[in-house]
């Protein structure tokens, strides 16, 4: 069965390591914070100028001056620091963030990502996404494997305007965990109960399937 949003977040969270500074995008990536494995500590970076993002505030704690990149009210974790937007993106662009998790509309076999614009339909702007994908060495894209109509989002060539070129190496969909290298998708893991055939069928770009494709465990 396809992974739930929580399961996607949970699987991504296993890629966290102790002492990681992590930037989580809006949507499913945000949920990753709920599944940090026991015994490790991570610190969340919010690109509007906060390192050490805490949980949501109680009603009493709400502070209009303290929001995250999704414009939600938040709190600061112990040891947090505040900085301006230039410093925040110096941090991101300079490769100091250990892991970035963000959503996408499409990725392709060359590591290209499209996530910010559907011409004629959705023009909200790229926000910090272009900086994040260009600056991070370690990125996990989370998205559904295909659209509701069954159109694959893992393509030979992205059809939408790109957010970044050649910068994505790992994709976690509701069906599979996939690595991108040497111009191909490589199937690493499959969702519980999802067959390799199903994944192959919904992957438009070239997919390398090893003999043994382990099933994710939850």
């Amino acid at each position, binding site marked *: 069965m396809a992974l739930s949003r929580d399961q996607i977040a949970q699987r991504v969270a296993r890629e966290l390591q102790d002492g990681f500074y992590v930037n989580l995008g809006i949507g499913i990536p945000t949920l990753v914070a709920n599944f940090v494995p026991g015994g490790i500590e991570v610190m969340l970076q919010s690109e*509007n100028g906060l390192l050490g993002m805490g949980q949501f505030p109680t009603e009493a704690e709400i502070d209009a001056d303290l929001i995250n990149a999704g414009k939600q009210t938040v709190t600061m974790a112990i040891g947090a620091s505040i900085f301006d937007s230039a410093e925040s*993106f110096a941090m991101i662009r300079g490769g100091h963030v250990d892991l970035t998790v963000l959503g996408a509309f499409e990725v392709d076999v060359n590591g290209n990502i499209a996530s910010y614009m559907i011409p004629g339909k959705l023009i909200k*702007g790229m*926000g910090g996404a*272009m900086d994040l994908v260009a600056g991070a060495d370690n990125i996990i894209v989370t998205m559904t494997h295909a659209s509701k109509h069954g159109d694959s989002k893992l393509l030979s060539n992205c059809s939408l305007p*790109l957010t970044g070129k050649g910068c994505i190496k790992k994709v976690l969909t509701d069906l599979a965990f996939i690595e991108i290298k040497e111009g191909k998708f490589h199937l690493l893991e499959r969702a519980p109960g999802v067959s390799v055939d199903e994944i192959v069928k919904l992957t438009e770009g070239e997919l390398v399937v090893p003999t043994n494709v382990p099933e994710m465990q939850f």
Partner: protein
Amino acid sequence: MAGFNKVVSSYEEAMAGLTDNMTVISGGFGLCGIPENLISEIKRKGTKGLTLVSNNCGVDDFGLGVLLPDRQIKKIVASYVGENAEFERQMMSGELDVELTPQGTLAEKMRAGGAGIPAFYTATGVGTPVAIGKDERQFNGRDYILEEAITGDFAIVKAWKADKYGNLVFRRTARNFNPMAATAGKITVVEVEEIVEPGELNPDEIHTPGIYVNRLIQGTFEKRIEQRTTRPTNNK
């Protein structure tokens, strides 16, 4: 003798000299840390044909969005404009010129503008629509594009505290784009919640030195919250 006293007594005085077709750089991220009353003053003045440089463009009835109904904005340079119906309408109809700029590039362009750096290279946007028409060049085997600095005729800034000399302190994530905006205006106007005497701020804790500030005014702020997310009180 005015010396370094930057305090002005009215919003009219604060925005004096702003005329049609000027470029205005604004601090703020979403509705957080925006110069609310300076924006209202621009609306009141009715200045038209403005080019606005700001990460966002407010919402329909608050923040920079209030300048949309009277078509005061000709062009906006922003990274994210997704929370505003009138904005979307004007953009789609071509009434409003929008230059989408990645958030980090936008922050760095403002900083560069204030710092006398006319242009810098960044990997952000390589191979995307943002790169169109821009110089591309390799350093250490990687592709980068050349991005140029931004300066404004005016910069409008919201800080938390200031001394009369215009030394500024920001609070929490209301800092965001404000320090860079402050450096990049020919005339930088700052509104704050509290003005103190020079010497009351610890020199080590000043975020923006007064040299960047031309006019300073104390205001009261609505500080509207865009997404009021909370947890139950008993949850640890």
